[in-house]
């Protein structure tokens, strides 16, 4: 039963990263873009779906609490200040979609909120992953790191890396959804962002090797793990090829594959730990009666319904947006 909820959690996290990843990424690209029509096109490309994307974050939160209470309590309290910044960022960027068209004079406030909020949220999420990889200071199941125990140069590096990654995801979404100069802009950005991401990946790997993180040991124990990076490299090559051929649909799929491969790599190198290397799935899982009660209602019926709903929603809004799309 615990495994089923690990599966639900993994799906919810991956969906969140992929879905909110591209719309946070567009928020990041939105900042340096000055042209109003390009800004509008960027917003149009995500405004029908961003809210649904963010719902997955709430799902991650409550599943974590119900099924793995210790992880919820430990992680959230340890990451007190970063989460505060992330939530504030998400709120500011969320309302910007609605409020920026209500005003001319104050539009810059909502635009700034959208760009900065997206950037902060992405940075914090990357930093969280970095802090987890490096290992939070936990002694006998309790966090002991204090206010800034999550902070490390490595975590910051990962934060910057995820901003680049999300921006790449966002650029590929724009290529798929837009036409004209917004699409051209996105095509120009993809190679730069990819190179940036590559440099970052090498830096992270070097740093991890140099500092001899415990996670590296798992790689030597489980050589088949290299399947995932290999998939990632294949996808990266396909990405380069599709950008050269200006094949609008492919880049996004390829970056999704890269993200999924990275997620798989992390998840399996952590296994069976939920907070590496302190709390395992078995230690964290709520009692059977809780997991079963969740399973027979929301797990068995509502969760598949939500997946279906997400697919339908994305299908309804597929295809290019055009210049004469209505203002939101």
């Amino acid at each position, binding site marked *: 039963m615990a495994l089923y909820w690990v599966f639900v959690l993994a799906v919810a996290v991956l969906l969140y990263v992929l879905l909110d990843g591209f719309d946070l990424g567009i928020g990041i690209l939105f900042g340096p873009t000055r042209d109003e029509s390009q800004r509008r096109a960027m917003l149009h490309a995500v*405004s*029908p*779906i*961003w*809210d*649904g994307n*963010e*719902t997955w*974050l*709430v*799902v991650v*939160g*409550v*599943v974590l*609490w*119900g*099924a793995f*209470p*210790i992880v*919820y*309590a*430990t*992680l*959230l*309290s340890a*990451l*007190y*200040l970063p*989460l505060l910044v992330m*939530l*504030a960022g*998400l*709120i500011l960027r*969320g*309302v910007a*979609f*609605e409020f920026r*068209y*209500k005003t001319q004079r104050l539009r810059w406030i909502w635009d700034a909120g959208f760009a900065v909020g997206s950037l902060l949220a992405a940075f914090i999420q990357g930093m969280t992953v970095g802090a987890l990889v490096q290992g939070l200071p936990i002694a006998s199941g309790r966090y*002991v790191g*204090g*206010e800034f125990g999550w902070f490390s140069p490595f975590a910051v590096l990962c934060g910057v890396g995820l901003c680049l990654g999300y921006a790449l995801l966002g650029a590929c979404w724009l290529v798929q959804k837009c036409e004209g100069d917004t699409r051209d802009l996105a095509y120009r950005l993809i190679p730069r962002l990819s190179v940036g991401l590559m440099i970052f990946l090498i830096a992270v790997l070097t740093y991890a090797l140099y500092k001899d993180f415990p996670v590296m040991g798992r790689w030597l124990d489980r050589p088949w793990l290299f399947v995932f990076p290999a998939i990632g490299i294949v996808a990266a090559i396909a990405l380069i090829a599709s950008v050269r051929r200006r094949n609008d649909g492919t880049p996004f799929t390829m970056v999704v594959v890269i993200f999924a491969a990275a997620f798989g790599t992390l998840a399996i190198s952590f296994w069976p730990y939920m907070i590496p290397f302190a709390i395992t799935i078995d230690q964290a899982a*709520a*009692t059977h*009666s*809780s997991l079963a*009660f*969740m399973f027979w*209602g*929301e797990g068995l019926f*509502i*969760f598949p*319904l*939500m997946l279906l*709903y997400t697919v339908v*929603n994305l299908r309804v*809004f597929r295809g290019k947006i055009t210049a004469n799309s*209505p*203002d*939101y």
Partner: protein
Amino acid sequence: MTLTALLLSRLQFAFTISFHIIFPSFSIGVAAWLTVLEALYLATGRPAYRLVFEFWLKIFGLVFGLGVVSGIVMAFQFGTNWSELSRTTGSIQGVLLSYETFTAFALEASFFGILVFGRPRVAPWFYLFSTAMVTLGTSLSSFWIMVNNSWMQVPVGYVVKDGIYIPSDWAAIIFSPVVWVRFPHMLIASYLTGAFCVAATGAWYLLRREFAVEGQIMLRMGLYLAAILVPTQLFFGHLTGDYVHHYQPAKFAAIEGRWHDEQPASEVLIGIPDSVSEADHYAISIPILGSLIGSLSFHSKEVGLTDFPPQDRPPVVIPFFSFRIMVGCGLVMLMLACAGSYLSFKERLERNRLLLWLIFLSFPLPFIAILTGWFTAEVGRQPWTVYGLLRTTDAVTPFLTSRAALVSLVVFGAVYSFIFAFGIYYIYQLLRAGPVGRLVLPPPAAVPNRPMSVVDTNPRHLAAGE
């Protein structure tokens, strides 16, 4: 009083949840109102019902959206500030709140999409059905919240193992008698909120001599509904008092401002409770009424606060006054609803501008009643987070510093005030504009997961029909 992390966390929770509760309680009421309107439209075919429906749908979208935004914070706050609570009770509370998220997402989000887009694409009965499902979704949401909170008030169906609360009987948790008193109390409060906001809006239009037909529909339906609901609410309020009397005697004594055992007990109508002298100053009280309210008896002994050791007593001032404010709001609403319904029935309300003004100005009352009711319930539960089991001092994140807690309180305070000032201003603009013009088709961009987009209709459409 020093600003400890505990105090700051309590302030932050109180602030964020008070801000949040305003929006869902309103949207639950408005959802029910929309269902009634749609049913009336189907039954009678009167276009005015349809116009009023479309108007309130826009407001519903905006309020619903603000509720969603402020709700995200709630999903995280238990873990960040109350890690010991979430660690020890997660197997119960986390599960209940996950049901809240899942059912809300499934019902509200998907059927709300049909409300926004679906009118031209689905059969009328199905559209009505979708409206009812959104109402069911919002009500179920509040149901799970009330199950969760009632478990914190009167914990049942659990065993303790290694300091962790483990559910042993889900049926006992969900069908706890306390849930089935407090859930209707909250649900009716939400419906009353909807009823008074609708009636006040109607009164506003009549005072401005605009939208006479629509204004009358709003005014009448709001008032009639309120006239039925307020007495029902008083009844459920009494039942809620009974459960407090039975399960939480210290809270009951604090609400009553009763410091010492009395037999028969008097009822303090108003006064200033003072915990130093353990007495109420300037109290106006009625003999025997206290026993009558507490136990429906003329000579029962009622318990005073001094029966409890000082560390187990709740604060007195907040429950005492907030309870009286809540009851006061309820009584004013009762009078307005009865007088308004009577005059409306006699077709004399439209000429009675004084009463119209009073009804117009009454819209904050249900909100105040809901907030003060929650203050009574939550502050009265202190010093416990889970009544009798887990003290609030033991529920807070143990290593949280007051500096971090202060930063978060200030940030949330600033962000919420900023965002909601704009949101409320925007709702005001919509209400002021009124149900103008011809029926507006939904904008193609409006989507289920983006409820606020309903209101984004291009204003040109509206102007064209004026």
